[in-house]
């Protein structure tokens, strides 16, 4: 799954560790999320959506077939 997490984080000048702290996950998880290696659970996706003030589908997009 593609996502805009890295861009949104950079816009705010946050490090991966800053974002991890706000989401209550490890920095490794943020790194895997940004690289599209790990898809978040629904609760985590909602938390990300709330933190950035954007709808989930604007942050995460499914891979095109």
């Amino acid at each position, binding site marked *: 799954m593609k996502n805009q997490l890295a861009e949104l984080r950079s816009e705010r000048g946050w490090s991966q560790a800053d974002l991890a702290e706000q989401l*209550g*996950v490890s920095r*490794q*998880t943020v790194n895997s999320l940004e690289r599209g290696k790990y898809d*978040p659970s629904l609760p*985590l996706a909602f938390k990300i959506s709330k933190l950035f003030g954007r709808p989930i589908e604007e942050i995460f997009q499914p891979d095109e077939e």
Partner: protein
Amino acid sequence: MEKHSVDAISPARKLVMYFAVAEGVMLTGNLAVRICLRRELIPQWCVSSLAIATTVPLIIFAALFFRIVRSQLDEMLQRIVYESLAFAMIVFLPIAGLYVNLRTAGTIQTTLDPPELMLIPSILAVTGILFSWSRLK
């Protein structure tokens, strides 16, 4: 959603350390039991007590395992742990089945010692962690 430690690697390391210590104590206990039996150093009830006592850390680890995983690891690290355990179980069963049948058939004569039997699932779980970690990293 539960609040997890930001530096979730530390709880993961703690988990591995607890396990390594518990398994180490058990294996050292097994060695001590063998030495005591061979040299008849202490009475049988003491040997049995030693055997039970050195397994207690593994029992405590088993009791703490899910509490640590659920409360201290974030969702990705939880997934790595669960996937690695599933990997260990799925790979261990055919290996154990093959060993048991070939041993029964007399094709292989090698007897696995208890320490080897204890270490195989651990080695498989670590292998599973490395697989999962490399895939998600």
